[in-house]
């Protein structure tokens, strides 16, 4: 048996507080994205998780829909306009006493007509004289509303708001922007570790210095280079290949540094033996180093992929903000500006943008952590 001391209880309590504070914002977003858009703007997401009591006012049909049944004038219909899962528990006919009657009771109105409301919202209103009211009668109900969730928001956001297209655009940016630096930097890192050439140490110092250079330093000159190239060949200065190269450039230092640390740690006897056997560096690299580096590749792939997926700045500067090129973070920022109060769109959009990082996080957490611990410095 483990013994529970006072200090252990305190530790558990503190940690629990941290966990709750950390999970609630994301959880709230997740729940909200599945709620009905009218409901979520009038009640907090936490109310949607439990069955709630709600008080509402509805109006019956007016005299035009009355029918004659067994010598009685009858108006019958359903209070709810659209189908829902609310269950009425009581109703009232005056604002002073809104839960005067229980469902299935017969309420008698001042003019002698009788009205009954049922659990599912059906009502029957009967009178011996013809109805003359042009407006329907106000009915106050108390209903229990069970949690209801819908995927309507996702349909709207993905297909009408253009987030679906932005999602694909982001993949088009992110996959090459991860694979290309990985290929280029692995050769570079191998050269820095195992090949002899002039200026190797200087180059390494340059890489380490570049690790922390803020990418803001590169934006203005690069943008003008891109514009010049665009003008020279009479093409758009903003394109997917342009963004890949930019991400390759900004990720180069950290990717090279991490890969070099790994490749350098491989046993040098192995490489020397291969050299003696007559293998050239290209063969050593493809046959020996690459297969051994798969775990390191996985970690770095994840880091760079997440970085590119979550990036906003590079996507804003080097891509046009048009539907065929806009990336998902830029789309989200655009929605924040134009749909600032439509939380059903914002929460759903944000959750769509988080699906890929969260999937990677839950499936490949081990590699992700390994990469971060190996040194997460990025310019």
């Amino acid at each position: 048996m483990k013994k529970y001391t006072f200090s252990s209880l305190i530790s558990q309590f503190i940690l629990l507080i941290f966990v709750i504070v950390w999970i609630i914002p994301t959880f709230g977003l997740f729940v909200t994205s599945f709620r009905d858009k009218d409901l979520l703007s009038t009640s907090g997401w936490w109310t949607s998780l439990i069955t709630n009591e709600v008080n509402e006012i509805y109006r019956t049909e007016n005299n035009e829909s009355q029918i004659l049944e067994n010598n009685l004038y009858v108006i019958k219909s359903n209070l709810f306009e659209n189908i829902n899962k609310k269950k009425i528990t009581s109703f009232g006919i005056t604002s002073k006493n809104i839960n005067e009657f229980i469902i299935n009771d017969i309420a008698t109105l001042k003019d002698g007509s009788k009205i009954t409301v049922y659990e599912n919202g059906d009502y029957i209103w009967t009178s011996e004289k013809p109805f003359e009211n042009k407006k329907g009668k106000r009915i106050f109900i108390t209903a229990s509303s069970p949690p209801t969730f819908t995927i309507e928001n996702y349909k709207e956001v993905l297909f009408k708001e253009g987030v679906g297209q932005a999602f694909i655009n982001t993949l088009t940016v992110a996959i090459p922007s991860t694979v290309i630096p990985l290929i280029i930097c692995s050769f570079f890192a191998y050269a820095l570790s195992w090949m002899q050439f002039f200026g190797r140490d200087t180059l390494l110092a340059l890489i380490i210095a570049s690790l922390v250079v803020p990418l803001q330093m590169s934006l203005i000159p690069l943008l003008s280079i891109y514009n010049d190239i665009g003008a020279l060949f009479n093409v758009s200065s903003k394109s997917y290949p342009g963004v890949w190269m930019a991400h390759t450039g900004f990720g180069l230092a950290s990717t090279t540094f991490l890969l070099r640390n790994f490749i350098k740690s491989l046993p040098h006897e192995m490489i020397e033996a291969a050299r003696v056997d007559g293998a050239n560096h290209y063969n050593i690299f493809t046959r020996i180093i690459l297969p051994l580096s798969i775990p390191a590749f996985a970690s770095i792939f994840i880091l760079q992929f997440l970085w590119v997926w979550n990036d906003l700045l590079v996507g804003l500067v080097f891509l046009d903000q048009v539907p065929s090129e806009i990336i998902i973070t830029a789309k989200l920022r655009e929605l924040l500006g134009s749909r600032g109060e439509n939380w059903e769109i914002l929460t759903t959009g944000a959750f769509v943008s988080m699906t890929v990082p969260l999937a990677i996080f839950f499936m490949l957490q081990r590699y992700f952590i390994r990469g971060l611990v190996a040194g997460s410095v990025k310019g």
Partner: protein
Amino acid sequence: MAIFSLFFYVLTGILVCILYYHSANFLLDYFVKKKSNDSSIRAFIFIAPAFFILIIFIIYPVLETVRLSFFDKYGREFVGISNYIWAIKDPEFRRGILNNLGWLLIVPTLCTFFGLVIANLADRLWWGTIAKSIIFMPLAISFVGAGVIWKFVYDYRGPGDQQIGFLNAIVVSLGFEPQAWITIPIWNNLFLMAIMIWIQTGLAMVIFSAALRGIPKEMLEAARIDGANELKIFTSIIIPYLQQTILVIWTIITILVLKIFDIILAVTNGQWQTEVVANLMFDWMFRGGGDSGRGSVFAIVIMIAVIPIMILNIYRHREEQKI
């Protein structure tokens, strides 16, 4: 259709890359039979792409930005240090610098502190792994996504209305007036910082967690036998042991905070006195058709703040190489 072009784009990009290395090495083997030539030409083939990208995307732009900061808005005429003088007099820039200083003081400190506390607590509890996963999760989320998440938490409705923001719901249920959190000057900076702390604490925690496992068990047990309590062990053994780790985490988060941009742009866009330097820089890249002189000044301010960390990194790398 969109999926198809995605595959097309992705495959072309990657194939071009692989083709270069393979054909260059193949040609080298084909034409140069002498083995002694292997090293230098092949080193060139291996290094060239990365080296050119490094020059074009990092080294040249850094130098060019320094030059542009002394030129007018089109980068044509030399204007001396007038861009810098303008910046010092600019109230937005002063506000940005003050805010950045606030960010620098608060965010790395709290992230490191929370990270250390959580790593310590979680490693001793049976449900610690789950707790760590939850704390760590925000690290995978984009700053903009986190901005949306927290803007929703801070959402404000008038005093009589039903609050849908979690923070205001708590405030109201405790009997206070609801507040429009992100529009209260000065304090709103703290609410924005909370977003960054929420994201980066996981990073600090993970690195601490790995470092904590490196502390020799015998040392901790010896201290316990000698009668030290947990708090004493924490302050006298764990903290001194983790000094290097604390420094590393501090510098990583400091660099991130210096460049903080996405959160501000998404949540307030610098309104209500939440301006920061990186956001000003982005703004001036496009404001009034773009002003490369002023934009460059802001970039350089960030760069100058980073230089001490850069020197520290190079120095530390040298020390590691010696061992």
